[in-house]
């Protein structure tokens, strides 16, 4: 079992290839790995409450063990504040991301 940090910076509504990245996260988790899925930049647009057919919902349904974090700075820039954050997504920050990256056994992938 390995630890993965997958960083998604792209908006699923703009880049269809984000779907593959979400699938990688789900597959890694289903294979028994610890997976953190960190949303940043336009990647957080999927964390807004009320979005239909949400990529994060599909990910969490397929692999409930994936921990989904969203960069608070990116959320604020896009008016996803207070009650606007969808369930299942935890507000985080670059400080926590750096802590995750500063572990030698963690495999980090940026998309």
């Amino acid at each position, binding site marked *: 079992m390995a630890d993965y940090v997958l960083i998604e910076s792209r908006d699923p509504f703009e880049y269809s290839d984000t779907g593959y990245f979400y699938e990688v996260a789900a597959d890694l988790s289903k294979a028994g790995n610890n997976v953190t899925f960190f949303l940043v930049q336009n990647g957080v647009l999927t964390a807004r409450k009320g979005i239909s057919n949400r990529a994060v919902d599909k990910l969490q349904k397929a692999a409930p063990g994936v921990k989904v974090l969203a960069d608070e*700075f*990116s959320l604020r820039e896009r008016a996803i504040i207070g009650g606007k954050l969808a369930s299942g997504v935890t507000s985080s920050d670059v*400080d926590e*991301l*750096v802590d995750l*990256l500063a572990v030698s056994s963690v495999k*980090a992938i*940026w998309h």
Partner: protein
Amino acid sequence: MTTSGEKSITIALMDPPYESGTTTTALRIMDTALRKGISVNVFAYEGAVNLTMRGQAPHPNPVKGTSIEEQDHPSTAKFIAGLFTLGADSPKLEWVNCGLCVDERGAGEWIDGPRRGGPGDLFKFSQESTNTLIIGTR
């Protein structure tokens, strides 16, 4: 380069300045790491070699009606110069600009701090770092 026992993160960066939010995120990661005492190695290639250009000119903000001085525009070179202040010793910031990419773009006039190198530096950085993050562009 860090000594044994110290933590360090290597980041490979490809985006040119003012192109995408990725540059801001990468600089935030570097800044946070250095403030936590974690050394940072950067391999800048392709358009990212323009990030450290010394001659980047600030501009006023016509929306806010501010002058160049009032706006104090945060150019990438100025931001990175600040990172070099944070990472002067321990933790340490090392920044390598890809030489071929620099020559292609005529982008060799940098702020103090970066040095010229090549992919071998990225390999060496990654071998000696706690972790490596490769940030590609589209």
